[in-house]
């Protein structure tokens, strides 16, 4: 870990017992934590209340934890299947989109294609295309892919967003001499791309994957349009439907939300180092 250029307390203040700078810093951190943890803790608090306890005192701290809501929510919602669907959609679509971004961005960033500069422009224009939910629905309808998981994955996979732009910027940091040296040694284009360029650009590739995965994971509109069959619902839609069915039964809804959130938080605890640390910021030169 290299030294970070943090703000150091100024020398003149160092002698004082309580430095206002560090006090306000601690206060800011506390507020930040409260702002992010309170909603989650309140959710847990609500989930542990029986209906009677919620009606008696909806806001107060839970006195006798009651796990009945969890049992009911688990019985009535098909959350394991929804989580499974979401994982498949997110993994497949983000993988597809990232692969396509790599395949398109590398030759363009190198100028190996005719009209590379136009492709570069096309990557930017891709970001600003009109909202195409209607036509994507019509396309899948006419291809016979409406209400199929494959159709949904293809649509979500094609939503590559900033992927090619970030990658073509990052690929420029891989020296072009390496291409020539590898070609001289008889390495083929595909092998070179996947065994040399991809590992060298892994921070940017991870970023592109994560950004697209976030988009797919959070989608609810396209899932509503393209997947009417509720057994194919991703998590977002499954939980939303559950909310529609059990309106205002807050204990039950909170328990359902906890059931959904718990595996995500658990997975996140293990993955956050890769998700958050170098990866996401890695592609943007600062």
């Amino acid at each position: 870990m290299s030294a970070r250029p943090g703000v150091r307390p100024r020398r003149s203040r160092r002698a004082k017992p309580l430095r206002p700078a560090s006090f306000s810093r601690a206060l800011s951190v506390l507020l930040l934590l409260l702002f992010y943890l309170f909603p989650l803790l309140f959710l847990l608090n609500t989930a542990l209340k029986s209906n009677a306890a919620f009606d008696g005192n909806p806001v107060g701290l839970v006195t006798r934890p009651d796990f009945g809501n969890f049992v009911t929510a688990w019985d009535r919602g098909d959350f394991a299947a929804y989580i499974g669907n979401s994982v498949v959609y997110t993994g497949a679509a983000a993988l597809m989109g990232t692969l396509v971004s790599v395949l398109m961005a590398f030759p363009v960033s190198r100028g190996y294609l005719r009209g590379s500069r136009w492709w570069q422009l096309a990557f930017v224009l891709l970001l600003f295309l009109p909202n195409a939910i209607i036509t994507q629905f019509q396309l899948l309808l006419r291809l016979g892919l409406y209400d199929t998981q494959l159709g949904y994955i293809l649509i979500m996979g094609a939503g590559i967003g900033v992927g090619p732009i970030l990658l073509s910027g990052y690929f420029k940091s891989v020296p072009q001499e390496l291409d020539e040296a590898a070609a001289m040694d008889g390495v083929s284009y595909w092998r070179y791309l996947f065994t040399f360029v991809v590992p060298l650009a892994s921070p940017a590739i991870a970023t592109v994957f994560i950004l697209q995965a976030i988009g797919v994971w959070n989608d609810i509109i396209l899932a509503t349009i393209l997947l009417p069959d509720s057994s194919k619902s991703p998590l977002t839609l499954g939980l939303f439907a559950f909310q529609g069915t059990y309106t205002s039964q807050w204990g039950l809804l909170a328990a359902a939300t906890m059931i959904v959130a718990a595996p995500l938080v658990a997975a996140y605890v293990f993955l956050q180092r890769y998700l958050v640390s170098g990866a996401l910021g890695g592609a943007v030169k600062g």
Partner: protein
Amino acid sequence: MAAGFPFPRRGSMRLTFGLGAAFIGVFALAPALAVLVLSFTDIRGLPFLPVNWVGLQNYAQFFSSGHLDYNLNAIKNTMVYAVISTAVQIVVALGIAVLLNQRLRGHTFYRAIVFLPTILGVTVTGLIWSLIFNPNSGPAASIWRWFGSSPAFFGDQHMALGLVIFVQIWSVVGISVVIFLAGLQGIPAELYESADIDGANGWQRLRLVTVPMLAPSVTATVLLGIVASLQNYQLAYVLTGPNNSATQLLSLAIFSQGFGGSATSGLAQSQGYACAISMVQFVIVAIASFLVMTYLKRREARL
């Protein structure tokens, strides 16, 4: 066309590039272009009905007296949503990033916490905040009651959009924080040392060293923010439904006009009209983003 292609077979590169381009072409580009074409037709959600050209009728309908109020309201909400959520998010993210960039104990934990809502997804986020802003029994209602008022929160015409923006910022600020943190760690420590020698105070260090050095990250975040806030109608949908005029965004209008707000009720809706809304949104987004990007690029070059 800078350098020649060093590998023996150009065909393999062309093949994979072409496959990628074809995939994007079929599932993203063609539908986007078709929006323009279909906006001149009376196409409906039910398949195999005859489709007729109607010229500019859908656009005339958009600006007709029966629809104009609804649409102007959606345009206004979209602008407010995009501008405020992007601007506030960047300021908040910068503040959090500068805070977490100091060598605090547990800074990785704090960073993980701020990023967490991104993983939880819109529905979980929506449910959590619906619970907190539940007008009958939520903690926010208790706080408001101390001040003698009992608003309906997401059901209140004056509060709903502000609250959706608030939740949007809560849930996506982590992405910008991470991008800013990466940018901050790339600022050489010597710059701060020379600022100290010149006697700069904390605010001057932030304004004269940190912010200019972060310019590329800011440009990236603004771009992501604009694109996200214009496509991110998911949260408004989850929190207030597709047909709430207080949070009616253009993209939600496309959804509710094209599908009637749900998958089953909308098969007879006029999707040609919805395509026209989409084109209007496209023009607005294109102009707004072009202006913002030109300004930021010029600023970045000047710094």
